[in-house]
């Protein structure tokens, strides 16, 4: 193999390793915390808004149903559902707009298939992202991205892969905001 091919391989490896070392799990595109933009999603054919979760501590989780990390993460979150419920923490699982153009079940069907216990958990909601939500919150089209929002409507963290970051989600769910809002 010519020397330049090895250099290319090394450059590729570094291109992967560098962002990992720099903290690939932080997907915030601006300084935290910042106000959560209002965005809409649909559920059972009805349009809903994030303002419905006002004054609550919640996680908005955008997933694509073909994404392996999303499936594995959903199962991990299912195991943690009681801990999350105990703190009144809300989780809004929203399928990415049009599932990124790929076939697949809706958010409800996704949960029914891989984590059915979540369907009976009162603090979990499911929906479909609108095109406006995609533009506002996931313009880069990450297949798996979530936002942790406090009672004041401030985004405190933007990350991915709950399989790896569950502890951060649980810590956030347990913590009351500085202003002492009630979930």
């Amino acid at each position, binding site marked *: *193999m010519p020397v330049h*091919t*090895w250099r290319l*391989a090394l450059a*590729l490896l570094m*291109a*992967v390793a560098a*962002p*990992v070392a720099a903290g*690939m*799990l932080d*997907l915030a595109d601006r300084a935290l915390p910042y106000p959560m933009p209002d965005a809409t999603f649909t559920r059972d054919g009805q349009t809903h808004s994030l303002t419905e979760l006002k004054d609550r501590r919640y996680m908005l989780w955008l997933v*694509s149903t*073909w*994404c*392996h*990390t*999303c*499936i*594995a993460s959903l199962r991990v979150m299912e195991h943690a559902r009681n801990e999350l419920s105990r703190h009144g923490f809300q989780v809004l699982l929203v399928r990415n707009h049009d599932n*990124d*153009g*790929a076939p697949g079940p809706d958010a409800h069907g996704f949960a029914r298939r891989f984590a059915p216990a979540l369907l009976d958990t009162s603090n979990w909601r499911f929906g479909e992202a609108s095109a406006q939500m995609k533009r506002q919150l996931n*313009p*880069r*089209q*990450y*297949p*798996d*991205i979530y936002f942790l929002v406090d009672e004041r409507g401030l985004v405190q963290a933007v990350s*991915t*892969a709950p*399989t*790896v970051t569950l502890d951060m989600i649980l810590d956030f769910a347990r913590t009351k905001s500085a202003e002492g809002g009630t979930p």
Partner: protein
Amino acid sequence: MNTILEALRRVGVQGRYRWIALAVFALFLPLYLVTLPASYVGGLISLKALTFLDAKLTAFALVMAALVALLAPLMLYLIRHGHRSAKSTAAGGILIGVFAPMLCCSPLLPLLMGSLAALLPALSGAAGIKVQYFIATHQTELLAAAVVLLVIALYQNARKVVQGAACRI
């Protein structure tokens, strides 16, 4: 198959090449065991990925590590005897096996494609998600392709080992 066995027999009679094979296997098996399930942990190289290993991924990790372990002594033998080894196919097999799981479902491709789209507006930022979808839905085929490339590389190098010896005679 006979060519591969003959080459392995010829190289394997020297103890140091057997040790090299063992060392390469010991190096690559953990590498594959951690990287193959990376698609379940956002493409990260993390020990947490080990919890998502299943029978299929473990089998792929064992087969690929074994193939690389057999390849390495053949390539070293050829280099030491002044012959050119076939590296491209081997590198392709290793790169596909390692990178495919890391690129699926991670933020890396959307970030990369987003940056490229900013530089080249003609390039759609959505290309990254399409590549990720392809990798996610064809992971088994991609890993099988990596195995096939490693087998081809093994055969190419084995043939050179056998031919090289014949030329000297």
